[in-house]
C-alpha cells in the first residue's frame, strides 16, 4: 500500500494504468480524474508526514498494490446492507459517504445492527468540505467506475487479496472515559440530537446541563463497546430550544462518559500510533484537527485525509481509523 500526494495528471496516469486507489481531494480535482478502479471523496484537510495541512492543488492517493481483484460498487441509503454483497473472500472494503446526506444518517444509525457488514474489515470516511465553505460547497464522493460525482450514496471499493495475505483494522482513540458520575450519560432514543439525558439517575435537559456545568464539549462522549472506545462528539448546544446536536448518533441504553481531558493532542496521537504508519491506510477526524490544532504539528507516520467522520464498521468521531495489510 502506498500513500502519496499526486497531481491530477499523475493520478490520472496511474488510474489509466489500472492502479486500484482511493483518492481524497478538492472536488475540482476529483472531477478531472478518468474512470477506473478508484473511489474518491472530497477533503482538503490532511495529515501529512510533517503535520496537518490544507492541500488543494494535489490529491491524496492510497494505492492498493498486489491485490487479487477489485471492484467499485455504489449503494444508496436504502441498500446499505448490500455493501456486504460486494465483499470478496479474504479481502476488505473501503466505503466513502458524503457528509449531511441521507446515506450518512442511515449508515450512522443502522450500521451497528447490520451484522453482515462485520464479516470482514470495512473502513472508510465521511467526505467534507473546507470549513469556510460549509453551506456553500457540497461534500461529494466519487464512483470511479464511471468517474461520476455522488451527492448522496455510498461508494465502495471491494478488494480481494492474494491467498495468505492478512488484513487488520482497528481504531486509535486518544480519549479515555472520564469516570465521573456527573458526566456519565445515557439517552433514551437513538439519534443525532437529544433533548434529555439521564445522569446520576435523573433526567435532565441535556443542553442546560452541559451549559450550567460548564462542560467542555470539545471532549467527546466515550462509550465502551467491550473494550472498543467509541466516541460521539457534540456538534452544537442550543439552550434556546433545549437540544444538543451530535456528529454521530447516540444509542439508547449505551453509557457515555465525557472523555478525560487530553493536554497534548499531537503528542498523545504520536505516542499511541508509534512509527508503524508507513504503508497503512488511515483517516483522522476534523475535530481532532481543529481541537488539537494539528495544522503544522506532526502526529507520527500515519498520513491520510482528515474527515467529517471515520468508518470502521460503524460511524466514529474524533478517532483515527487504520487498516494494515500483511503480504502472504
Amino acid at each position, binding site marked *: 500500500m502506498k500513500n502519496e500526494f499526486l497531481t491530477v495528471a499523475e493520478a490520472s496516469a496511474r488510474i489509466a494504468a489500472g492502479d486500484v486507489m482511493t483518492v481524497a481531494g478538492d472536488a475540482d480535482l476529483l472531477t478531472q480524474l478518468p474512470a477506473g478502479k478508484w473511489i474518491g471523496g472530497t477533503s482538503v484537510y490532511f495529515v501529512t508526514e510533517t503535520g496537518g495541512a490544507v492541500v488543494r492543488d494535489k490529491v491524496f492517493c492510497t494505492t492498493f498494490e498486489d491485490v487479487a481483484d477489485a471492484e467499485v460498487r455504489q449503494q444508496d441509503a436504502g441498500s446499505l446492507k448490500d455493501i456486504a454483497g460486494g465483499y470478496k473472500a479474504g479481502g476488505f472494503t473501503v466505503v466513502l459517504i458524503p457528509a449531511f446526506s441521507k446515506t450518512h444518517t442511515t449508515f450512522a444509525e443502522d450500521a451497528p445492527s447490520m451484522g453482515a457488514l462485520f464479516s470482514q474489515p470495512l473502513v472508510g470516511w465521511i467526505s467534507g468540505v473546507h470549513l469556510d465553505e460549509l453551506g456553500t460547497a457540497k461534500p461529494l464522493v466519487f464512483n470511479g467506475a464511471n468517474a461520476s460525482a455522488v451527492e448522496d450514496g455510498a461508494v465502495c471499493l471491494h478488494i480481494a487479496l492474494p491467498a495468505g495475505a492478512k488484513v487488520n483494522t482497528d481504531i486509535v482513540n486518544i480519549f479515555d472515559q472520564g469516570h465521573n458520575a456527573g458526566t456519565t450519560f445515557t439517552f433514551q432514543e437513538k439519534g443525532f440530537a437529544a433533548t434529555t439525558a439521564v445522569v446520576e439517575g435523573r433526567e435532565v435537559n441535556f443542553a442546560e446541563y452541559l451549559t450550567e456545568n460548564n462542560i467542555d464539549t470539545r471532549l467527546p462522549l466515550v462509550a465502551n463497546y*467491550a473494550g472498543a472506545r467509541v466516541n460521539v462528539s457534540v456538534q452544537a448546544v442550543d439552550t434556546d430550544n433545549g437540544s444538543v446536536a451530535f456528529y454521530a448518533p447516540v*444509542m439508547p441504553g449505551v453509557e457515555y462518559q465525557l472523555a478525560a481531558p487530553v493536554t497534548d493532542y499531537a503528542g498523545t496521537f504520536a505516542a499511541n500510533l508509534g512509527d508503524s504508519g508507513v504503508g497503512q491506510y488511515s483517516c483522522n477526524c476534523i475535530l481532532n484537527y481543529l481541537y488539537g490544532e494539528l495544522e503544522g504539528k506532526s502526529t507520527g507516520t500515519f498520513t491520510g485525509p482528515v474527515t467529517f467522520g471515520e468508518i470502521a464498521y460503524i460511524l466514529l468521531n474524533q478517532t483515527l481509523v487504520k487498516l494494515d495489510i500483511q503480504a502472504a
Partner: protein
Amino acid sequence: MSVPAPAQLEQILLSSSDLSSASLATRITVGRLRTEVSGDPSSLSQKVAELTEFAQSNDFAAADLANI
C-alpha cells in the same frame, strides 16, 4: 472453528469485561448485544442466537469468543 456453547456466550453477554484481544468487529458486536440485553433482559436468548450466528459465519469471531 467451533463456536462456544450458548452458556458461554450467555456469560459473555452478561459480563462487562473488555475483550481487548478480540477483533474490532467482535468487540463492537458484543458491545451492542450487551447493551440490548441490558435494556431488555428477556431478549438474552435471542441475542445469544445472534452471537452464535455471527460466530458460525465468521471464523475470526469464533476464535475471538473461544479465546475469552
